[in-house]
């Protein structure tokens, strides 16, 4: 039966599906790794992970579009004023109200500006990382010295706060309706002949591979062991002179910055930022499940978990609509129940995940001298 369903899909659909899948897996690997730094290595139960992703997305939704809009205001005005008269009186409001027209005009303009748009893309990603780091720091200030249960609840509360602001404050990312993101790699199409899907693919893959390489260098260095020392016993770490709170704040900063980068590339890929889509289900609970399934604190746990679960979710998302007529409720709730049950099952039967963390061995410390 599954075979029949697969055969019904046209070839283009299959390619689209695979590219989409690779993309989602890459983004979720970043998010799950961010959590691995915070929870797996340092022991901070960050159940507010989604706010990091959201902050990165808000930067992508706010910064490049507005900057280009002010730079090319006259050109955009000439193209848009017929469809959107607001632009003559209140250009600031027009950016949100006539967002799609503005985006189309901007995309036309920046197609001819490869240098500028690439620089702007990199700048946006850097700002997103910086904003994420700042948010990580801000969230740590009231929370980080708390006991693990208070810490977890405070981070959830802070994430809720970011969500409320993002969903309501329209100038930031368009409120509930969202805002578009200009296609900063659009120049590749006329010059190199790459369609949009390839552009996004290049962006996502290069960002993910570079970030993951950096993170692995960091986690394998003595710094990774420092994080684990704090996780294993705060008292023992304090006793040997480690500034525990400082290390935890650093882990929050690094993790949130990585999550923000993921959020920014996610919005570039989609071409828009809709604040209501940065839910705690998609960007906190699912990454948590991925990490717990793969194995917290292990090197490949986050990658395996993100790949496995995202593949499953994408496959389900293709077929779930065939069930929607049969049930008197939305199928998404079944997925949520599966999410909750999977948490419980993993915690009861595989508390260390599929690939548990291996103890590390140091030369001269763990090797006994030969008799």
């Amino acid at each position, binding site marked *: 039966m599954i075979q029949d369903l697969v055969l019904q899909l046209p070839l283009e659909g299959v390619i689209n599906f695979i590219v989409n899948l690779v993309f989602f897996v890459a983004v979720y690997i970043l998010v799950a790794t961010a959590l691995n730094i915070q929870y797996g290595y340092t022991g901070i139960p960050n159940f507010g992970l989604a706010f990091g992703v959201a902050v990165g997305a808000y930067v992508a939704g706010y910064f490049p579009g507005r900057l280009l809009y002010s730079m090319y205001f006259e050109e955009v005005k000439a193209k848009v004023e017929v469809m959107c008269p607001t632009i003559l009186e209140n250009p600031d409001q027009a950016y*949100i109200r006539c967002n799609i027209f503005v985006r189309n005009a901007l995309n036309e303009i920046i197609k001819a500006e490869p240098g500028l748009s690439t620089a702007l893309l990199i700048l946006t990603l850097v700002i997103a990382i910086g904003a994420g780091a700042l948010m990580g720091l801000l969230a740590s200030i009231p*929370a980080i010295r708390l006991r693990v249960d*208070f810490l977890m609840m405070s981070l959830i509360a*802070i994430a*809720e706060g970011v969500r409320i602001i993002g969903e309501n*404050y329209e100038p930031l990312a368009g*409120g509930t309706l969202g805002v578009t993101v200009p296609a900063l790699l659009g120049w590749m199409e006329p010059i190199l002949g790459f369609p949009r899907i390839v552009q996004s693919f290049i962006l996502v893959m290069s960002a993910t591979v570079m970030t993951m390489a950096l993170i692995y260098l960091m986690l394998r260095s003595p710094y990774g062991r420092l994080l684990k020392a704090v996780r294993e016993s705060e008292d023992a770490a304090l006793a040997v002179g480690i500034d525990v709170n400082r290390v935890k704040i650093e882990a929050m900063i690094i993790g949130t910055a990585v999550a923000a980068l993921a959020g920014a590339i996610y919005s570039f890929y989609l071409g828009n930022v809709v604040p209501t889509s940065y839910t705690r289900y998609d960007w906190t609970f699912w990454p948590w499940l991925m990490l717990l399934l793969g194995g917290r604190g292990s090197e490949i746990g986050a990658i395996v978990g993100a790949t496995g679960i995202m593949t499953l979710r994408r496959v389900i998302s293709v077929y779930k609509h065939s069930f929607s007529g049969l049930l008197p*409720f939305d199928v998404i709730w079944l997925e*949520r129940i599966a999410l909750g049950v999977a948490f419980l099952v993993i915690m009861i039967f595989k508390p260390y995940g599929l690939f548990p963390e291996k103890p590390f061995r140091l030369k001269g410390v763990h090797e006994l001298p030969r008799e």
Partner: protein
Amino acid sequence: MVAWGAVAVQAFIYSTLIAFLTMGFNLTYQTARIPNWAHGTFAAVGVFMTLWVTRVWEMPTYYSVILSFIVVALIGVAVYLGVIYTLKRAGAPEILLLISTIAVDIILIAVLNIQADYIQEVHKLNSRGFLLREEDIVIGFNLDQEIALQEGVDILLNVPLIPPSTVPGVLLVAPTLLLGFTLFFLFLLYKTKFGMAMRATVENPDLAEVVGVNVDMVNLVSWFLTGGMAGVAGALLPLWFRSYPAIGSLIIINVFAASILGGVRSLSMAIVATYIIGYVEIMGTAWISTIIPEIGGVSTASYRPLIPLLLLIFALMFIPEGIYGLLEKYRERKIKARTEGIV
């Protein structure tokens, strides 16, 4: 023009209903040592009980209070036995126990949404954003219910207010029940043998077990009672506030803020803190709305949930031990001063 009296009443009911939850949250926090993140959603189950009772089964409204108590208390017991007890026996660390209550929350919200869809689909009733004020009994008989409903519009929730000449039942029932539960808990904790066992478990579960306290039984009873209380609060909620399946996720922030501000070790201070937060939240939003009606294209009232959040951060930064801790410190200092005089 803000009808401050009406806003104060709003804040009073809001705080009273959340106080049920804060009390229960603190109790299970102390006995089982984990903050039950699903506590808000326990109340949401009660919310839908009221919808079923009044609209689907068309029974008297207050039946749902009793029904919710039983149903949610049983859910509490099931969660304790099925999840927390199981995980504890498997030797799970504290952090996984915390996560397990979030998993329970996810499952419960999904189930609530499924039945909300079902109500909408099969019974053609609004199950997202419903308000059941007209189902409430009215105490005081000078005004016709119909006319009463047309008077005045609530600035916060955009729903009709009942003028003060009639008193909706929930306004009397909620505080009475809260008082009843508080007295019951005081009696249970300080005048019975089982209460002593409960207090011993709170102080030190391992030591309590050594001297023969059945800690599992204590936990089971506290999950039963606090679950039931959450159910009662939930059952009363739609009689005054617009309700939807995920309402628990919003309420839990208030509960948590009140729990920290009051001090997790104290039931009475948690109630005091709930009222402080409830009043600051509702009155504060109404007051700020009169000065700044709109922020970033939406009405200021949309940012209301930020207020308990800010109070939470304030409490965490400046009085992490809570009001209870402050009082405790004060008491200690007083005792010290007195003994110094003797010595």
